[in-house]
């Protein structure tokens, strides 16, 4: 895994540099026409920005509600995705990141993005690690729905969906509800968004409902992820929430 990391890191760096250069070149090709078009768009954008500022405020409120407070409690560090399902034996839904156990990415470390849970570290080399994705059928995570507060165990599947197991038949869970981590498994902090319930059906078993969900994170477009360290191992990524105390000089 370490060898793969050494080979792929410069390749990813070169690809980014080339993409950046190519974008710059393309931007110069038709810059005059682009300029005229942009002036027209600017007027439209000014009007749209008035609406967007309201959306932004709403998004901020939703993020706060949906529990990215975890990033304020737990120290986190960013990692770059360098390969997805690398090699012929990548049977599990995994990807490789450019951080290993020397950086704090040990087995079981929660992996998230700003949108929600991505997975957890499956195994780690000194400078690279393999992350098991949320959508893998071997992945298990204790979740709770944000409205009806229905608990369950979320699993991936071989199809492109998530399943929530052990949901009681009399639970009031409904499609459209957001699933968040319950914190009951001890690895993920409570309150991180995971997915949205898409379907609720009576289960094959008598005691449990059959609940399907879709992940909030687009697993096909992952480029950077955040890894959550154990509490107290380093300063948190974001400053603590709540009123800031200023010290006078």
């Amino acid at each position, binding site marked *: *895994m*370490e*060898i*793969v990391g050494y*080979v*792929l890191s410069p*390749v990813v760096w070169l690809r980014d540099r080339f993409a950046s250069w190519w974008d710059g070149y393309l931007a110069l090709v038709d810059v005059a026409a682009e300029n005229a078009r942009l002036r027209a768009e600017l007027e439209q954008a000014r009007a749209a920005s008035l609406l967007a500022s309201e959306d932004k405020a709403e998004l901020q409120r939703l993020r706060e509600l949906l529990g990215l407070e975890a990033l304020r409690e737990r120290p986190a560090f960013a990692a770059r995705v*360098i*390969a*997805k*399902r*690398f*090699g*012929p*034996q*990548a*049977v*599990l839904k*995994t990807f*490789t990141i450019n951080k290993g156990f020397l950086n704090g990415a040990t087995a079981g470390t929660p992996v998230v993005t700003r949108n929600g849970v991505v997975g957890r570290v*499956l195994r780690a*080399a000194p400078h690279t690690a*393999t992350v*098991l994705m949320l959508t893998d*059928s*071997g992945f298990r995570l204790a979740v709770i729905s944000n409205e009806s507060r229905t608990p369950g165990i979320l699993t991936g599947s*071989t199809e492109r969906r998530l399943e929530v197991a052990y949901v009681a038949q009399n639970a009031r869970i409904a499609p459209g509800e957001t699933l968040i981590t319950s914190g009951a498994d001890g690895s993920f902090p409570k309150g991180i968004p995971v997915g949205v319930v898409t379907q609720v059906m009576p289960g094959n078993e008598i005691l449990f409902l059959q609940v399907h969900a879709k992940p909030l994170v687009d697993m096909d477009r992952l480029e950077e992820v955040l890894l959550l360290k154990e509490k107290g191992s380093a300063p948190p990524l974001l400053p603590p929430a709540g009123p800031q105390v200023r010290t006078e000089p």
Partner: protein
Amino acid sequence: MKKLYRVFWWFLYTAGAVIVQQAVPGVDALMPGFLLALQENRPRQTAVLFLVFTLVQEGAGSLGFGTAMLSYAGAALLFRMSHGFFVEDNIVFISMLSACLGLYHGLLIRLMCAIQSIPVDFEQLLRESLIQTLAIPLIWVPAYLSRPKNAPAAQ
């Protein structure tokens, strides 16, 4: 000097194969190189590549240890069984061998998943076995053409 270049060529090939594997999930881009090593009939070179390729695939893969070893050992066995009937450095031979290796890849992954109680996505496995079958000759041809030519070692 020529020996040094041959070793350097393997470094380049391995790096290139890793990049191909990054771009195409599930494909074994090191396998055509291993077949090339078998064709050159240098036991020490083949043994070293077997070790390196096995470690790379085992380290990066998500199955328990042994799958890559069985994969390359199976490829060597298939090669030994069939090379007496065909001209080794012929694209037809490589294409037939790659079809067998694609099938072997699917069966091996299916077996290893069953042993380790891992659910298999059959559609994905079938697709990747087919990609593997097509990828081997596609990678083998440029590798064979760019490989520095020497007389094969004595059998």
